[in-house]
């Protein structure tokens, strides 16, 4: 089973990567110029604060020699003991926070992957099937601009536009359209089972997901256009046309299908971009997901929490990478397992 061996090899190779990444995080937080305990206490200097500082330092183990700290830190991460929050949600376990905040980020990420799929790829394929027409230029131009647009700016512009749509959406404006939702704030995921709740949750997440997925949308548009253009010039397409396969059948059954192959790994690599991009989008749209949690932890001096979250992000990125490589070998068996990685 070549594929399983390949997977195992990738897993083994990812161990030093995770180790180096977490070590870097450890060095930044523990050896950086900012003392985590001091950051937690804040810029006060009364006797009480000094006592508190000493207590936190002892609790975090900052008084131990550095190699012991490092060992403790790594063992904690390995055993998934992610510690607790010190400032943002004082005393709460990080794992509990992840369970509370995670679903909203996942919901956002899911739609941020889906929207580009259903907008970018069809548009790109449409452009590829009509190359060098005005429609092609319009779609390609849109893709180029989407790619170059900063997420945070698109977010604030979209918010401003949607807040002024009283006259559109059948006169109800965006907020009152179909179901009542507020523009800013977290989606309510507790009522996903009901039609109303699902609709509200989806509607709520659409604007931020559109923003988060905008760059991927541009990428996918451009790539699917290229893929269709390349496929359509392949010899087998000419052959099929010659033996009388109808044009629509040719396009739907053969061209689009083969054009999809190089796109699938791209889609997973987009998921990787979402991890970092979610911070800005969540902050602007007021969604209290993991991105906001990380931002709050940073700005409020909760470095232990930020470090643990970073570990989660590292694991996530590495797993997405592995999944992508494995998926590639499944989709396109021509890809060798003996890659240079």
């Amino acid at each position, binding site marked *: 089973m070549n594929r399983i061996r390949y997977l195992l090899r990738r897993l083994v190779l990812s161990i*030093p*990567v*995770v*180790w*180096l*990444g977490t070590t*870097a*995080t450890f060095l*930044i*937080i523990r050896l*950086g*110029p*900012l003392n985590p305990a001091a950051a937690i206490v804040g810029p006060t200097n009364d006797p009480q604060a000094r006592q508190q500082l000493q207590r936190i330092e002892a609790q975090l183990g900052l008084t131990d020699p550095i190699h012991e700290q490092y060992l403790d830190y790594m063992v904690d991460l390995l055993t998934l003991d992610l510690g607790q929050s010190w400032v943002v949600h004082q005393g709460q376990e990080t794992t509990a926070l992840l369970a509370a905040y995670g679903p909203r980020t996942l919901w956002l990420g899911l739609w941020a992957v889906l929207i580009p799929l259903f907008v970018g790829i069809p548009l790109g394929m449409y452009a590829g099937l009509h190359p060098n027409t005005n429609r092609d230029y319009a779609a390609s131009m849109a893709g*180029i*601009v989407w*790619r*170059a*647009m*900063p*997420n*945070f*700016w*698109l977010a*604030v*512009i979209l*918010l*401003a536009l949607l*807040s002024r749509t009283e006259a559109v959406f059948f006169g109800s404006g965006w907020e009152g359209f179909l179901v009542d939702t507020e523009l800013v704030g977290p989606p309510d995921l507790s009522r996903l089972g009901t039609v109303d709740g699902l609709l509200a949750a989806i509607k709520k997440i659409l604007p931020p997901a559109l923003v*988060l997925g905008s*760059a*991927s949308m*541009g*990428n*996918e548009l*451009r*790539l699917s256009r*290229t893929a269709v253009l390349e496929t359509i010039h392949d010899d087998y397409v000419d052959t099929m046309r010659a033996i009388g396969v109808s044009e629509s059948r040719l396009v739907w059954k053969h061209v689009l299908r083969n054009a999809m192959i*190089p796109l699938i790994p*791209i889609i997973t*690599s*987009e998921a990787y*971009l*979402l*991890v*970092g991009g979610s*911070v*800005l989008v969540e*902050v602007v749209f007021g969604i209290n997901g993991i991105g906001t949690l*990380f*931002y709050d932890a*940073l*700005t409020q001096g909760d470095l232990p929490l*930020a470090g643990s979250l*970073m570990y989660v*992000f*590292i694991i996530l*990125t*590495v797993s997405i*990478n592995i999944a992508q490589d494995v998926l590639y070998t499944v989709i396109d068996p021509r890809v060798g397992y003996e890659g240079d*990685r």
Partner: protein
Amino acid sequence: MTEDARPDDSGPTESDHGPTESDHGPTESDHGPTDRGRPSDDRNAAAARADGGLVDRGGVAREAGFADRVRTNPGPALRWLAVAAALTVVELGALVGLLAAALPVDAGLAALADALPTLLSRETIPNQGPRIPGEGWQGTFLGLSPAAAWGLRVALVYAYAATWFWWLYRGYRTYRREYRIADWTPRDDVLRRFSRHRWGQFGLVVVLAFVVMAMFAPALGPTTMERNSFEPYSYTITTYDEDAGEVREVTVGDANLASTSQGTEDRNVGFGEYDDFGRFHPFGTLPSGQDLFTFVAAGARVSLFISLLAIGLSAVISATLAVASAYYGGVVDLVVVLLSDATQALPQLLVVMLLSVVLSETWLASLYSGGVLLALIFALTGWPSLWRAVRGPALQVAERGWVDAADSIGLASSVTMRRHMLPYILGYLLVYVSMSLGGIIIGIAGLSFLGLGVTSPTPEWGRIVDIGQPYLATVSWHIAFVPGVLVVVVVTGFNALGDGIRDAIDPESEGGEGEATTAASGAGG
């Protein structure tokens, strides 16, 4: 001996095949003095000559160096240098001023700068003054309206910059016509392909316009950051008071307070409007009443400086590592792969945030309002993507015969790498540098938007968006709108330029895949 001695179309086919073959490498030899004593290149050059002769057009033996060739035929070079001198003289004041600002200690230079003439300055073409009914504008250039005077200055600045660019291009043409020995080099083909690449040229124009905006920021703005934002109460303007019917002085700070843009009809100065004091605001004003264009132009300078510093550092790191890991292979290669994988496993934007918070209290963060720190962080986290991009070409060139040959004649490893490997990956590096620059610009803006990047009062595009966000749904929407549009245009420009360079150096890759990972995208911010 014209340039057409060689078939003009697509060049020799073999040079188009291997991307590293000769498309952009051996052209090092164009650069004159350095190529003496490089027999292999001379042979290339001879091969490229139509007649294979050994005597140059000036009658100088072709073994003579570049300096000798110029000495024999100094006319074109002197004319070319004279144009440069003329272009420098008109801006001498600004140059000395820049020098004075860069040097830590001095007193004389700044005074000297004021005494020297500067053609493109607000002193030569003033755009502010009172408007007296019946007499028109006072104190502006030729009595033009402030808008027209400002527009004239902007046009002149860009014309001046375009002249410099034209001068550079003429210099290359002159060199090619008068001094270069070879009639054809692969770089000619690169240029020819770029000259047909409209999309790439669009990118070049946008990038140059952005660079000019950053370089000439003080002359381009209707006013200066110093007068407008940093010390508004130390400067005054003259304005015509309609109630009193006379010209009076008012401090810039007071005038700003009365020309704010805060979202209501009576408190808004939009695109191309005058405020109550006869000051022209091309992009309107900020909520604080300061001129937005001045702020944006100064912000362009900050963005360009940080992103260039960051990309320069990562280019050096990644080129060094790519060449070294390709040359040594084995363990070195493995270590570099691991380092890059580990760096990439850390989500870049999050690490940048973490580092900028952790290092915010150190002396590094005080350099250039945190700009230097930001550039360092971007360089340290961004090199793997560049390294990945040039790794392939570096591995290819490492397998070439001439690298073995260089080793076998006992050349030091560092010399082999620098002289015989590095030139071949520089073109690729340039492509990815251009494409990653946009990503860094977006990243810096995103961080500043969150309040983590460049600190106040240094102007930055992302911070302007943050300032203007509350007013986006009102009449003062221009504040957050302008910097965002500029980011989109500039990033598109850098991406287009990258596309153009790539197609020019490597025509086979046209519309290639992998763009998704190369071109900058907004996902980073």
